[in-house]
Structure formats: structure tokens, C-alpha cells
């Protein structure tokens, strides 16, 4: 009898859980499945026509340059974020949080304000551009391409610093000492001990910055000087453009973007899992 009541409460508890699960499912349905479905339907408005157009020149090259831009920016982002995370993690524990805060405070400022600040700095008559010009680096950071990369790297840096900091903080320093003891120099220690340890954080961080960078349209718009066309800017102008909006084609481009992002996510997880597969953390 007692057992039955227990069973009964267990069942009703699990029913309660499944009832609670309805809320997130409803959320997903209303704000993910339905809009995505709408986009897909819109994109297939006249069969595969819009998709075919999206994959042909000149749009194929826009897709390609968007991928290159996002990949390059992600790599540069890693190049800056890793030393930053390493610097923070090598401080004494009580100074880590303040240092981390110092590196992240610029991001308390509104995104548009920050990008506009870069726009001012990178203008041909801006302080940075003129400074670099006098030093003989005319157009080093100010060309539309590099300005966009700079803006993207700057904007998405925290999404890479945080996961890197999280993994590096768990590094067992004695492993570095062991490597040193066995004769490894600084680069060998970094490559054989730090990087493999940080790999999950690196992959997670890269996915976190690559995905939004792929769809970013604000940075290329503001810093590209009208020269940079990405998937993001194309989608934006297809939907909101004053000249000739084309919703079905914009939806097809959005579909392409989703496929690329999905592939990147899958690759990131699969690659990460494969690399860590043999590992069974003690």
C-alpha cells in the first residue's frame, strides 16, 4: 500500500515535471519553430529559385567573403583573447577578478556606441588613421576590410575571453612544472600542456564568436565604408532595403546562413568531442 502511494507520488511528480517542460517547449515553438518555418516557407516561395540565385555569383562570392571574414576575425580574436586570458589567470587569485573586470568593462558600453567610436577613430581624418599614416602605415587598419575585422574582433572578444579564462583557471600548474622538469621549453609547455587543456574552451569560444560574426551586419555597415558586403548586410538590405526589398531572396540567404552556422556548430562539437574522446578526466 505504502509502496503504491510512493509510486503514485513519483508518477505525479514526473507529470509535474513534464507539465513544467511545456513552458520551454511552448517558447521554442512560438519563437523558434514558427519563425524558422516562416523563413523557410518564404525562401521556397518559388521552388528552389531563390536558393539557386543565392549560390550563384555575385552572391556566392558574398557568402565566401563572409565566411573568410568571420574565420579570420575568429582567429584574430583567439590570438588576442588567449594572451589576455593567460595574463588574467597568471595573476594571484585575489587579483584575477579585478583584472578580468578591467578587460570586460568596455563592454558595459552600448554596442553601437563602441562601434561608432571605432568609426570615428578609423575615419581617414580620424586620430588613429592619421597617427598610423604619419608612422608610414597608411591604411593598415583603416582599409574597409581590416576595419571590419578590427571591429568584429573588438566586439566579440569577451565571448572568447570568458570560456578561455574558465578552462585556464582549472589548469593544474604542476603539469607545467612537470613539463619543465622533463625539459620542455616555454613553447613546448604551451603547446603540449596548456593548449590541449584549453582545447574545449578554445572550441567553445570560437563557436561562440564565429556564429554571431557570420550574421553580423552592423559592424560591416558602419566600419566597411559601404565597401563590404556580407551575408548579414545582404539579408538586411533584402528585407529592409529602401531600393528593392526581396523577402523571399532574403529568406533564402538567411537559410544559407543557417546551414553554414549549423555546419560550424556540428563541426565544432564533433571536432571537440573527437579530440577529447579518449580523455577521461580524473
Amino acid at each position, binding site marked *: 500500500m505504502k509502496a503504491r502511494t510512493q509510486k503514485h507520488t513519483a508518477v505525479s511528480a514526473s507529470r509535474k515535471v513534464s507539465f513544467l517542460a511545456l513552458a520551454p517547449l511552448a517558447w521554442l515553438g512560438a519563437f523558434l519553430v514558427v519563425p524558422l518555418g516562416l523563413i523557410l516557407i518564404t525562401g521556397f516561395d518559388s521552388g528552389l529559385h531563390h536558393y539557386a540565385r543565392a549560390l550563384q555569383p555575385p552572391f556566392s562570392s558574398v557568402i565566401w567573403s563572409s565566411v573568410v571574414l568571420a574565420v579570420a576575425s575568429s582567429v584574430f580574436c583567439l590570438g588576442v583573447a588567449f594572451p589576455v586570458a593567460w595574463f588574467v589567470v597568471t595573476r594571484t587569485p585575489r587579483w584575477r577578478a579585478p583584472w578580468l573586470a578591467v578587460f570586460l568593462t568596455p563592454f558595459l558600453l552600448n554596442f553601437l556606441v563602441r562601434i561608432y567610436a571605432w568609426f570615428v577613430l578609423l575615419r581617414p581624418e580620424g586620430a588613429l588613421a592619421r597617427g598610423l599614416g604619419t608612422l608610414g602605415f597608411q591604411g593598415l587598419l583603416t582599409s574597409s576590410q581590416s576595419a571590419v575585422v578590427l571591429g568584429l574582433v573588438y566586439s566579440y572578444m569577451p565571448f572568447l575571453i570568458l570560456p578561455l579564462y574558465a578552462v585556464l583557471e582549472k589548469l593544474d600548474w604542476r*603539469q607545467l612544472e*612537470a613539463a*619543465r622538469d*622533463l625539459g*620542455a621549453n616555454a613553447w613546448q609547455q604551451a603547446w603540449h600542456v596548456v593548449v590541449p587543456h584549453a*582545447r574545449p574552451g578554445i572550441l567553445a569560444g570560437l563557436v561562440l564568436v564565429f556564429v554571431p560574426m557570420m550574421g553580423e551586419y552592423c559592424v560591416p555597415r558602419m566600419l566597411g565604408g559601404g565597401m563590404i558586403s556580407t551575408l548579414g548586410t545582404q539579408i538586411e538590405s533584402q528585407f529592409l532595403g529602401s531600393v528593392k526589398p526581396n523577402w523571399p531572396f532574403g529568406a533564402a540567404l538567411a537559410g544559407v546562413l543557417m546551414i553554414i552556422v549549423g555546419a560550424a556548430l556540428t563541426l565544432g562539437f564533433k571536432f571537440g568531442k573527437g579530440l*577529447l574522446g579518449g*580523455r577521461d578526466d*580524473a
Partner: protein
Amino acid sequence: MSTGTLGAPPLLRVCGLRKRFGAQEVLKGVDLEVAQGEFFSLLGASGCGKTTLLRILAGFETADEGTLEIGGVNATHTPVQERDLNLVFQNYALFPHMTVYENVAFGLKVRKKKSITRQELNTRVENMLELTRMSPFARRYPGQLSGGQQQRVALARALAPHPSLLLLDEPMGALDAGLRQEMQRELRALQRRLGLTFIYVTHDQDEALALSDRIALLHEGALLQVGTPEDIYARPASRAVAAFFPEGNVLMATVRAPVPGQPHVVRAHCSGLGVEVEATVAPSGAPNAPQSQNTLHLLVRPERLHILCKEESRQSESADARVESVSYLGRERRYVVRLANGQQVVVSQNGGAPIAPGEAVSVSFLDARLHALPAGQL
């Protein structure tokens, strides 16, 4: 204090090593010599400076003062990577993302100077795995191994580059008692077989006694005594050394006369047991033995005392006493006994019928000659 001076040129020589962390002086001038092929233990309670000393030897810390020679070469400022020694870490510090094989090969791969062929490397790693009985686990990751297996991998990894000196930082600390004994035997056998020189840091007295050729007892940053396990245990140079192994009885005795022909031996009367004994007096600098009527402090370990029930014994060389308490420790019984003069002594006995508290017993020394602690160190 005795210094660890040896006849043959030492493999490791440490002179006047001092280290300070802020206001705390962790090492207060340490002198040591370790011979080729020795199993040398640094024994001390936690916080005595033994780990700091080991880290200075390995090169992770720099001494404020003093020098360090390895194989006759000054290595005081040699970078960690270039020291001809390896360290087995307390919690092994294995590389979790590398297999057992890769862990062991690491030291050989990163040292490009001593370039060895791929085949030599493989042979060497395989030899090390065989030596530590880890060959079947070569493809496993450290996280998939038991504590004892991880310990073996750490040992193989540190031995693979063929260092002339191996440092071990409490390598048994994380193992349970049974496994620890097994690993101790293995480690000792390996060290003997390969003729390696080990410097072994531990806080476990029994472990140090069981494994070492010589032990250096470290206390508050200074060496109290360096000697064989027997020296340290049975002939401690000071009361502090004696106290490091708990439950040593100290009995008072009065010097009667020197023993002719033996400069450091006297006959003395032990008042607690009411018997006359011979005692060796540790040569504490002064060459002359204590004078007649001087007081001696005889060190008697619990297992060097013997008790018998009153009825059974009619030995002349024994004293009357009463059992106050008894504890059964499996391989021995430990009695707290009160002597006729009121002093309490601890006696451990590993055989015979149990004696109940309150019973009258007779206590006698098992040794004909006892060790007197140096005077003036109370």
C-alpha cells in the same frame, strides 16, 4: 648535529642553503651530501621545509643563499630544464590528454639536444613501461588508471630521460596502506637494481626507515641529524630526533664508572628499574665521557622493554611495576606501565599471554647496552 659527509665524491652536494618566504625563514642553512646510488630520505613533519628543499633541488625555487652541486658541477643557477634530475610529483601531475605511452615519451621528445632516433625512443619507452609493469596500459589515459598505476606511470616518465638523480615528493601520499607497502617494495627493488640515486621526501617515519640508506631529519628548516635508519631510530643525536618517533621512554641513570678501553661507554645505574646497565654516550663534540655521578637520559624504545607477570619471573635484572592500561594493536600489545619510582613507561610486546591492567609485572631491558641522549638538550 652531524653532517652527512662521505668518503667518495658525492653526487649531490648542498652547502649552506637558506630560503626565506617573507618573514618566515623556511631553510636555515642546510648542508647535505648524497652519494651515487643512495636512497636518501628527507624526513620531517609538514612545514619543516622539506618540500622547499626539494623544489630548490629541482630548480623551481631559488635559494637565497648557499650552493648546489650535482655531479661535481655547480648547479645553483641551472634552469630546471637543464638539470640532470627529474621529479616524481606528489599527485603525479601526469598529462591527462596524453596516453601512458606519450606521458613516458614526453621527456625524451622535448629534449632535442640529446637527439635520439625514433626507434631508440620507442625502445626506451617500452623498457620503462616494462620496468614499471605498465606495458599493458600503454594506450590508456591517466584518468583511466588506478592510483597505483598512475604512480608507476609518473615513475616511468621521470626515469625515461635517464636522470642521474631522481627526486620523489611524497609519492605514496595518495595511496592506501596496503598498496603503499607494495609500492615501497617495488620502488626499493627498482632503485637497487638500476643503481639509481633517489632523494625521497616523506613525513612518514616508517616509510623512511623501511626504504632509506640514509635519512636526513629536517625540523623547522634545519637538519637535526643525518644518518642510517638505525642511527636515527636507535641512536638519535638529540632529544628532538628521539621525539620524532613517538613513545620513546626516557629513563634517568647515574654514571658509576667508565668502561675501560671504550671511550664512549659508561656503566650507569638506572634508578627507575633499579638495575645497572652499560650506556653509549653519543660523542656530542666533547671527546671525554661524562663524569661519575653525572645524570644520563637513557632512550629505551617500547619494544626494547620486556614485561612478565610477577609470578612467572624471578629475574634479578628486573624491576617491579604495575600495568596501568593495555591496548591491542593487532601485531602487538602496548602496555602503559608504572614503575616503582612513579614513572610511566610504554612497553610493546608482540607475544605471550595478555596481562590485564592492575596486574603486577616485572620490567627488564632487552639490550645489554643502552643509548644515552646527549646532555644539555632537554
